[in-house]
């Protein structure tokens, strides 16, 4: 059976950083998946977000449902310059959080949809989210960046691990 779920690249941070970028993504897959185990820094409140192909224009939108441990919340953001996959939560500097993002048909000529999940339980605090986002671009995705939409210069701490997978339909 051919391989259908392959790691394209993995980054393990050896220094605090604000942005993790996977570039030169091959066009040989059908879908992409990001799995990130992220650790924040105590002095900032980072929210992991996505950008594609370096596009910083307001071509993104998302809808998020979230559980806070006591309440259900939902929110929408339209015409923003990032896709927030952790809206409403922040990374801990001591407990890792999990971000998953599935990006479908990344080579297609229509707008690109992504599903995001944020597992941010911090033993007494934190949130869980499920989000859907759209990047309004017809370009094939060739690079993906994870960055902190709160703008902190070194949001992600040493030890964070981010992997980009490629998934083939056939």
């Amino acid at each position: 059976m051919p391989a259908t779920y392959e790691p394209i690249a993995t980054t393990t941070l050896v220094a605090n950083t604000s942005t993790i970028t996977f570039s030169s993504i091959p066009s040989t897959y059908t879908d992409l998946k990001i799995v990130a185990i992220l650790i924040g820094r105590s002095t900032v409140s980072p929210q992991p977000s996505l950008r594609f192909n370096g596009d910083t224009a307001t071509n993104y939108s998302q809808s998020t449902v979230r559980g806070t441990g006591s309440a259900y919340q939902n929110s929408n953001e339209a015409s923003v310059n990032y896709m927030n996959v952790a809206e409403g939560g922040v990374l801990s500097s001591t407990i890792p959080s999990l971000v998953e993002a599935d990006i479908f048909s990344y080579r297609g000529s229509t707008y690109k949809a992504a599903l995001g999940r944020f597992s941010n339980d911090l033993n007494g605090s934190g949130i869980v989210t499920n989000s859907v986002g759209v990047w309004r671009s017809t370009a094939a995705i060739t690079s993906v960046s994870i960055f902190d939409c709160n703008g902190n210069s070194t949001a992600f701490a040493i030890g964070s691990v981010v992997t980009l997978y490629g998934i083939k339909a056939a």
Partner: protein
Amino acid sequence: MANTYTLISSTTLASANGTVTISSIPSTYSDLIIAISARMGSGSGTSPYAVNITINGDGASNYSRTPLFTETGVVYSLRTANAANVLVEKALAGPDQTANSFSNIQVYLPGYTSSSSKPFFISAGNSHALAQNDGRNGIHACLWRNSATISSITFATAGNTMAAGSSFYVYGIKNS
């Protein structure tokens, strides 16, 4: 390039059993995905039923969870901290519910060999029970505060059994 989404183990219950332990999980992968299709074989109390998850046999207060779920058309969130397991309420249909319908649970557990605490994600639903107005569909942010490599995972139903035909598939994923 080698396939990196590999079946590690599969367990299908030949007869009703209250506990399933997946042991001897190799440490050669990066992440684990567990796909469960199960329902109750017996149960006292109110359907659907909870399933408890423990890791490496750890029964200490090292687990926590923040779920978001819908039930009877209402959305809830709650929190458990310093718990002795991850308890996913109303995850499994009871023997009094729709026959031949099994509930689905997926566990995504990345970095299971890391020396840090382990965050993981559970999606669980038993939509077939909605006809009885008591189904539940939820996502669960979970945490095991332990630095050990995960080598076993146990799924249990307190005092009850899971039905014959319930299945547990464990996949390993490599990130390189």
